[in-house]
């Protein structure tokens, strides 16, 4: 009951919110703030990639759209509360995503994945072509995020704000995963033909998943923008789209927390290794390689692996004659 309502999840976020500042401060705490935003980004991406089974190479489009919407709002209506900006960013991305998906989903599989990449690249080009998006320079200068009327002024306040927003958003996605829509998404992933034959509108579910994923990815992008105070075309590059898929794969999408773990591992390994190696992505690539080979279901599968080793031969195979040969209890059950 508590689990269904997402209480352990919220408790975990509350614990992290309190504990992190006790252990970390300054730039380390800031890395956790970035990681928190990526936790949301990864969970949003897994709605599409993990739950609905749609591969998108263009998640950066919505991450960036969130960041740029934030930057423009900050420039045009600086008095708008920070949370309201996040809501607008999410709405913009979700609407664009829904319109795009309505057309793009006439294709499927690899073709769809390529179209999502095209969308992200078009957005990236627009940033250079449209003057008010400021091209390579992007938007800079610390954003004054107003919460309850006063701006955030420290890393600690930024941390509390970010983790609170992420907790609420991830919790909403948790509720979604346990809803009929969440189940319909998994049905569409498992077998779209079967889902349609049951009466599920496959395209509608896919479009919804794409819009939800985009909306929450935009919130993540906006949070990163609010935190770093800089928005640049780098947020819309293919590298970002690739990295978020890597985070999902590292963590593993078999469980809800998988992509969240993957995001934390990704951000921290990038941050720590940036000081050691010139290009930390070499390490991330190696990590992914090791995980794909040794742990195809990601880091979340480690506990099951350990249990599995202790008790081998626990495969849920069923002898081929179980259901058919046994006489059916049909006649005994009066309906």
């Amino acid at each position, binding site marked *: 009951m508590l689990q*269904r309502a997402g209480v352990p999840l919220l408790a975990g976020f509350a614990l992290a919110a309190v504990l992190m500042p006790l252990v970390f401060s300054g730039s380390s705490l800031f890395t956790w703030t970035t990681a928190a935003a990526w936790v949301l980004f990864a969970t949003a991406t897994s709605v599409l990639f993990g739950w609905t089974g749609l591969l998108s190479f263009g998640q950066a489009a919505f991450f960036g759209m969130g960041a740029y919407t934030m930057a423009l709002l900050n420039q045009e209506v600086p008095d708008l509360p920070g949370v309201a900006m996040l809501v607008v960013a999410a709405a913009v991305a979700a609407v664009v995503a829904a319109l795009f998906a309505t057309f793009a989903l006439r294709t499927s599989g690899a073709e769809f994945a390529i179209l999502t990449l095209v969308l992200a690249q078009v957005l990236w080009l627009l940033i250079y072509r449209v003057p008010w998006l400021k091209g390579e320079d992007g938007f800079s200068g610390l954003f004054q995020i107003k919460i309850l009327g006063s701006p955030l002024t420290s890393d600690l306040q930024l941390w509390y704000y970010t983790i609170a927003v992420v907790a609420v958003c991830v919790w909403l996605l948790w*509720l979604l995963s*346990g*809803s*009929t*829509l969440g*189940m*319909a998404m*998994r*049905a569409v*992933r*498992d*077998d779209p*033909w*079967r*889902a*349609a*034959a*049951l*009466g*599920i*509108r*496959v395209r509608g579910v896919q479009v*919804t998943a794409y819009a939800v994923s985009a909306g929450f990815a935009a919130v993540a992008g906006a949070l990163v923008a609010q935190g770093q105070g800089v928005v640049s075309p780098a947020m819309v590059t293919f590298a970002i789209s690739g990295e978020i898929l890597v985070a999902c794969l590292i963590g593993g999408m078999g469980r809800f927390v998988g992509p969240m773990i993957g995001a934390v591992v990704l951000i921290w390994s990038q941050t720590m290794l940036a000081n050691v190696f010139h290009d930390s992505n070499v390490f991330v690539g190696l990590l992914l390689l090791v995980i794909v080979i040794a742990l195809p279901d990601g880091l979340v599968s480690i506990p099951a692996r350990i249990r599995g080793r202790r008790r081998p031969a626990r*495969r*849920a*195979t*069923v*002898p*081929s*004659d*179980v*259901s*058919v*040969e*046994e*006489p*059916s*209890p*049909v*006649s005994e*059950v009066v*309906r």
Partner: protein
Amino acid sequence: MSAILQLENVSKSYDGVPAVRAVDLQVADGERLAIIGPNGAGKSTLFGTIAGEHRPTTGRVLVNGRDVTKHRSSTRAVAGMSRTFQVARLMSTMTVRENVFLAALTGGRRGVRWWDTLRSHREVWDETDLALADAGLLELSDTVASSLAQGARKTLEMAMAVVQRPAILLLDEPTAGMGYEDARAATAQLKALLDQRRDMTIILTAHDMEVIHSLAERVVLMANGEVVLEGTPDYVARHETTKTLYLGQGAS
């Protein structure tokens, strides 16, 4: 009895190659119809046209007198059409119980709101457990569908189709891929299950004459995309045309 399903001059061709040619068919409410024919006769295409997976090139499909030609399979499913596939299609990562639950939830024009939690549909879970008992699947409730054996997959898919309480039940080769013994047992089980639901109209395709004899009241024989013979199972089974077709056209 009134016609629940009507095909009017239905044709379907792929890239100009006709698979179904000008088929007219009426199915009465509560009737049990088998569509048979050699491989390539157009059974599957016709079946897909009824289910809404293929849109006919020409002609109309009517359900209860209503033109549903342009309705997608999901729309037809909501309107009371359920089906099984030749090779069972299941939600492979879900358990047997979840598969049946989803079928029960989506069937029968319930008011499902997308934000409903799965737990809130208590009566659907109850219905699910009854259906699992009916189908003899209770012991496999928590087994993930991907690890089911072939026979159990077919049984599960049938349970999913029936729990939707469809007005029209479409069964595509219900014993395909089974051995002789399994096919006999499955046919008997199916007959028992269907005899409890005389309200359902059933349309099935089959190769197996025994399936047809025990489940169908009327048989339509197809060849080269056309209906060539129609009648009771006995009549069609004994007819020269059937023998010729099944032995191969060159044999006589």
